[in-house]
């Protein structure tokens, strides 16, 4: 089957400071948020990108939808290259990719009514002629909200309600791919399930592929078919969720999995404790970026980034001294 989304050797850089002063001081004129990254998503699949702050996962998501420029590499959607296209050429593609943002309240235009917010995708894509009361009510119904919400304004919504409006808007044009940036961040545990069940249901009903970006491993375990672990702009391990959780090979994946406090006071914490903080992108460690914090680092780790090794079905990782 042809991949729905294909990302190849993607690099995203952000310019920093002035290029002129960089010439004199030798300081980097850019930081690399995403480095030589490749992955693909099949139609109807749920794919999770897991990483902590500084991993580059949000930059990656924004690069995919064309919100930030891509330095090198290609992104293909449904067989068509979409990286480095003009805004105009990108427009039809945007109908097929819906995006849900991390802060639900902030992603809704504060001075527009919910009706206008939900009408936006239609208006942008030339369907401004529709009856938005009807369309809006239908979209709200899909996410379990009553039609009366159409006349409300974003500041009148609770966090959970705003989140659902965000989902409704992303689904308005029946996209093939939904990108969800931290869909459960800040949500109470008792209603996290609602959001995840909703996403699952949408997938089952409409065959949408979902790219979930999160740092919450528990969510990933229940919702994703495949998972990729990111560290400082690179994928360090990728595979089917069950495989990666059962047998993490990269030391960072193992640490991340063990850094998950279990809600059981008698649980034994055989923890792979890593010290220190994520290094700044201004001072990228050479070789494998994780080596300064890795208790299992060996000599090659500080010299060269490891090549990807594979085990089993579609399970790859980049580690000189794997578990």
């Amino acid at each position, binding site marked *: 089957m042809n991949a729905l989304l294909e990302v190849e050797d993607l690099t995203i850089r952000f310019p920093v400071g002035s290029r002129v002063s960089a010439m004199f001081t030798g300081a980097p004129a850019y930081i690399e948020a995403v480095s030589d990254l490749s992955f693909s998503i099949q139609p109807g699949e749920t794919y999770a990108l897991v990483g902590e702050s500084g991993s580059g996962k949000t930059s990656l998501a*924004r690069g995919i*939808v064309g*919100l930030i420029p891509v330095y090198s590499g290609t992104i293909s959607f449904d067989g068509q290259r979409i990286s480095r296209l003009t*805004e105009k050429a*990108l*427009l039809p593609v*945007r*109908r097929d*990719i819906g*995006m849900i*943002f*991390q*802060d639900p*309240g*902030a*992603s*809704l*235009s*504060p*001075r*527009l009514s919910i009706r206008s917010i939900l009408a*936006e*995708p239609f*208006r*942008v*894509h030339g369907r401004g002629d529709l009856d938005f009361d009807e369309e809006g009510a239908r979209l709200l119904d899909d996410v379990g909200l009553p039609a009366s919400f159409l006349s409300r*304004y974003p*500041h*009148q*919504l*609770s*966090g959970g*309600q705003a989140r659902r409006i*965000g989902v409704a*808007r992303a689904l308005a044009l029946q996209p093939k791919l939904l990108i969800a940036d931290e869909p459960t*961040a*800040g949500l109470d545990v008792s209603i996290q399930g609602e959001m995840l069940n909703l996403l699952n249901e949408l997938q089952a009903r409409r065959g949408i592929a979902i790219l979930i970006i999160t740092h919450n491993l528990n969510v990933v375990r229940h919702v994703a078919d495949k998972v990729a672990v990111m560290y400082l702009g690179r994928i360090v391990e990728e595979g089917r969720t069950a495989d990666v959780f059962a047998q993490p090979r990269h030391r960072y994946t193992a640490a991340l999995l063990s850094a998950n406090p279990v809600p059981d006071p008698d649980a034994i914490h055989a923890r792979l404790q890593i010290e220190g903080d994520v290094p700044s992108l201004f001072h990228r460690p050479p070789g494998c970026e994780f080596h300064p914090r890795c208790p299992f680092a060996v000599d090659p780790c500080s010299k060269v980034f490891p090549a990807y090794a594979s085990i089993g079905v579609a399970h790859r990782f980049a580690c000189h001294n794997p578990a």
Partner: protein
Amino acid sequence: MSAPLSDAVAATPTRANTGRRGGLLRLLSDPMGALGIALVVLVVLGAIFAGVLTSHNPIGMALGERFLPPGALHLLGTDQLGRDLFTRVLYGARIALTVALIATSISFIGGLILGMIAGYGPRWLDSFLLLVFDALRSFPTVMLALALVTLVGPSLSAVVLVVVLATLPGYARVVRAQTMSLKGAEFVLAARALGAPTRRILPVHIMPNLIGPLLILASMDIPVVITIEAGMSFLGLGVRPPTPSWGSILNDGFSFIRESAWPAIAGGLPIVVATLGFTFLGETLRDQFDPRLRKDA
């Protein structure tokens, strides 16, 4: 993520309190706001109904009646040419308000457009526009007035031009700053992710968030505009005599103050009243706007 309390409040049925009706009532409940509105209304009504309120001719001379003190026939007395001061003040209000309205509107719209372009557009355009704004602002208003009037001659249009050049950069800078911060806002990103082009994002998403603060800025600017007009007329750079303008009345009063104090008072008093009125109004508007915004956040 909404604060715990606001979640609880959100669970209770909300009363839509963002209506303009509510706003007007709130304005009137604040004594400063009420006073501001009263004074402004006074000035506006005076300007509109000048013809009805007095029967005197604002420019008709009556040399036999110079420097009369206030009385039944002349509420503020007469000036050095026997003209009724009260009438001249009312007609002067028309000048003041016309300039205020026209000049402020042009500055508002011009500042809005240029500020949005500067804030949202490419950096080189922003740098260029900033240069223009800062250059304009570095001119002392009086020098600007002198220079322009030398070019185009004293007239109402000259006053409007000076006011626009003096105030537009202020609006533009505020709009620019707001636009720049809104540019990175998540709801703008969401609109871009949908495919909305810049020509849609600016009016639909960014502009509505600018109008409120800008209106407040405008209402606080009007006293400044009135003062500029009066100042220019005082210096003889504004409307030409015999057209009454508060500034020229004040100037005449200043020249003839030994003969009678009333022309000076007649010229200065309306400036004070109008300035105070608009200032109070503007400050109350601003106070109403901010805490409400904070509570809603």
